[in-house]
């Protein structure tokens, strides 16, 4: 019983264990076989019983009919009744009737059964030499009785087989559990815990008597295989551990090598950055050094144009101014290109009104447009806010316009078109009526210093404009492109991202014309005498300006405190005290705090400009400057400053 309890509680019986499936299979199979065999047996019994009835009837015919014939011959009713009663005691015989000439004469027993076997035997007797039929014996045998017996037998078979099946199943299960089941359980338990075992030392061992007649069987082979496998796994694990260790070591080594390489790379990068920095600083210095004399050249030349000159002189002076400007653009573009290449060009993306940018760019080219008698049709009049660096975008538009003017025919047309591409981009197209760009040259349009044969045409240019524009556009998440047709002209376009927000509100800026007609006192602090002289001359030719000058910061500060000028022009590179220091002192003094200060310097790097605006300069003008721009800036600075 203990075994039975343990068996039922074992995993073999839980859920869909082997034990449960075995017992179900046994019962099903046994029931199936019992059903088939029982059916067969019952069929045989039925057949035998029916045959028995037939034989009994045959027996009556052979053995009893002659004596019965005698009784019928003498019509001995008593004898006949006795004989029929005797026959009716035979198994399954239910009724016996003797009829004579179709009518029943003697009868024993009644027919109760629904299913019967009926036979009629003729009764013969020899009379005067012939066998004559003197009557008929009708025999009715009950098949119901046969079926009842079969039914009883079926019940008996079912009960006995049920008990037998149960006992055999139970016995087989016990044997199975003893011989196989418990070992399977053991193996299963062992395999489940295999992963948790520390080593291959814990061997799988089956609990079984190995004496006398015992010989190894399949279970022993399985056990042996599992142990071998466990052993192999342990060996492999060990190998993997070792491999892991060596791998870690190798990774460590490689990491070390990589670190070394990285360090060397970082050092190299640092060297490169330093070199680049040096280059940038050099460029900046060169730029400053070149701009300062150039400022003087251009400035004085422009001033001279206001004097009374003869035509030859005026033409010469024009050439000087043009050459100076050309040189200035060249320096600026070269500087920008080199800065882009070393990634030093910083872009300040802000929402701005696009139509305003276009108008400013057009204004800058007005004189050339007039000179070439070109008709400009500006269709970019609706206000769209784009997200871009205003200065650099203006530079691109100026470049496109400049090309459209330069490469147009005299008296030609320029059309500026603005078109929104979807919701987030705006396309500006500049279409000219020039000669167009030949197909074979189109691939070179954005290459620096490529002028596509314009050298021969006498058109001025540096060949840097479009290359620079393309770089700038890319930096500002914009795209630039063109299409051109020989004889008809070219269209250059630039796609600019549309800003999500509008331009932040600013104080309404006053135009120069709004300013009052009072005389504006300007203090100019500059150590370079040429520049001093230039600005003095420029303002002398303008009405409403009074200029004060100082050649260093200290002097400038004193003058500012004494004279309280309306506006101060301040150079950055000053001896002893630089422009930023002077600005700080001005801003910290209550008497000079409200005076707008404009930086006027050859430090033209964008970093310099934003740094200046942040420090508190009203504007940051770079040399060389255009006279009109200087004058306008001075006027608007005074106009924007509230008066005490």
């Amino acid at each position, binding site marked *: 019983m203990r075994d039975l309890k343990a068996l039922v509680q074992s995993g073999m019986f839980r859920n869909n264990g082997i034990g449960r499936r075995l017992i179900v299979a046994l019962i099903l199979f046994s029931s199936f076989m019992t059903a088939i065999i029982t059916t067969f047996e019952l069929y045989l019994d039925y057949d035998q019983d029916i045959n028995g009835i037939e034989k009994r009837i045959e027996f009556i015919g052979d053995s009893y009919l002659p004596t019965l014939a005698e009784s019928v011959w003498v019509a001995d*009713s008593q004898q006949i009744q006795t004989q029929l009663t005797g026959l009716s005691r035979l198994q399954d015989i239910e009724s016996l009737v003797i009829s004579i000439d179709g009518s029943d004469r003697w009868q024993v027993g009644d027919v109760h059964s629904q299913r019967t076997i009926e036979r009629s035997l003729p009764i013969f007797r020899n009379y005067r030499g012939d066998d004559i039929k003197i009557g008929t014996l009708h025999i009715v045998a009950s098949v119901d009785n046969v079926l009842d017996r079969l039914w009883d037998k079926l019940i008996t078979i079912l009960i006995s087989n049920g008990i037998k099946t149960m006992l055999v199943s139970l016995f087989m299960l016990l044997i199975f559990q003893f011989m196989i089941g418990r070992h399977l359980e053991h193996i299963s338990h062992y395999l489940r815990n295999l992963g948790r075992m520390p080593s291959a030392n814990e061997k799988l061992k089956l609990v079984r008597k190995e004496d006398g007649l015992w010989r190894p069987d399949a279970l022993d082979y399985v056990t042996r295989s599992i142990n071998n496998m466990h052993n192999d796994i342990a060996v492999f694990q060990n190998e993997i551990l070792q491999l892991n260790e060596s791998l870690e070591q190798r990774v460590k080594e490689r990491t070390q090598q990589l670190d070394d390489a990285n360090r060397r790379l970082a050092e190299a990068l640092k060297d490169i950055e330093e070199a680049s920095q040096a280059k940038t600083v050099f460029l900046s210095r060169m730029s400053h050094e070149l701009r300062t004399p150039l400022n003087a050249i251009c400035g004085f030349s422009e001033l001279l144009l206001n004097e009374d000159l003869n035509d030859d002189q005026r033409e010469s002076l024009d050439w000087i101014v043009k050459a100076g400007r050309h040189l200035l653009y060249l320096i600026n573009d070269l500087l920008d290109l080199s800065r882009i290449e070393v990634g030093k060009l910083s872009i300040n993306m802000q929402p701005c009104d696009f139509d305003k940018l276009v108008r400013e760019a057009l204004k800058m080219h007005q004189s050339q447009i007039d000179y070439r008698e070109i008709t400009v049709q500006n269709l970019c009049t609706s206000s769209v806010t784009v997200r871009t660096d205003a200065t650099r975008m203006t530079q691109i538009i100026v470049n496109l316009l400049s090309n459209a003017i330069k490469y147009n025919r005299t008296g030609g047309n320029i059309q500026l078109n603005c078109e929104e591409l979807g919701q987030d981009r705006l396309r500006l197209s500049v279409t000219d009526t020039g000669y167009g760009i030949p197909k074979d040259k189109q691939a070179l349009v954005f290459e620096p210093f490529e002028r596509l044969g314009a050298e021969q045409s006498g058109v001025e240019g540096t060949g840097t404009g479009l290359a620079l524009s393309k770089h700038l556009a890319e930096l500002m998440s914009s795209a630039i492109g063109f299409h051109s047709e020989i004889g008809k002209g070219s269209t250059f376009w630039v796609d600019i991202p549309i800003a999500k927000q509008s331009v932040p509100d600013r104080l309404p800026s006053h135009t120069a014309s709004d300013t009052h007609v009072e005389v504006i006192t300007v203090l100019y602090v500059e150590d370079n005498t040429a520049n001093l002289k230039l600005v003095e001359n420029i303002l002398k030719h303008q009405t409403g300006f009074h200029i004060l000058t100082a050649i260093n910061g200290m002097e400038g500060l004193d003058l500012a405190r004494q004279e309280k000028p309306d506006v101060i022009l301040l150079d950055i590179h000053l001896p002893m005290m630089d422009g930023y220091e002077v600005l700080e002192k001005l801003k910290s003094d209550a008497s000079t705090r409200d005076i707008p200060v404009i930086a006027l310097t050859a430090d033209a790097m964008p970093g310099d400009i934003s740094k200046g605006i942040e420090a508190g300069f009203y504007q940051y003008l770079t040399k060389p400057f255009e006279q009109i721009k200087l004058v306008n800036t001075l006027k608007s600075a005074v106009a924007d400053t509230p008066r005490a």
Partner: protein
Amino acid sequence: MGFLQRVLESAFDSIGYDVEIIVLPGERALLNANSGLDDGDAFRAPGFEDAYPNLIRVPEKIGVMEFMAYSSPGAKIGRVTWKGLRDYTVAYANGWKIYERNVQAEEVTVVRNIKYLFPLLEQERADIVLLDRWQGLYMAKKQGVKVKLLEPPLAKVDMYMYLHKKHDALVSKVVTVLRKMKQDGTYDEIMSAELEQHNYMSN
């Protein structure tokens, strides 16, 4: 039987037929005649017509059946009636309807054949044996058994001949012959001769 045979032989001879008389158990004779196996039943009390519809009665009495009681010669039994049988052990043969209906004796033995009757008397297994006059006398003579005839008969029944219906044309002829035999004394002559023989035998 000699009487019946002689009457019938004489009667059928005069209308041109041979007669063969076969002795059969009572009911078998009816069954065979009714089925046409035999041509008729020679000597039968009336009243069976319904059960045997193929038989036609010849309506002229052949003779009288006297149902007698016999005892051992030494038995002190006087005149008996149906009721008087009650005090005795009685034997008769199977199939005799008249006995089956009327005998209400203390103890009754029914034998399968009349030949078993008189031995019962001899062995004192029965006090009275019931049988008709003619057969009783014939069997006693044949078996050499001494018996006493208890007069008068328990019952007397007129007996007729029955023919199968296939012979209905003969019925009127036989009637005519029988009447003629009774008128011209032939019938009585045969009767006297037979009685004389039996009386002698029974003594």
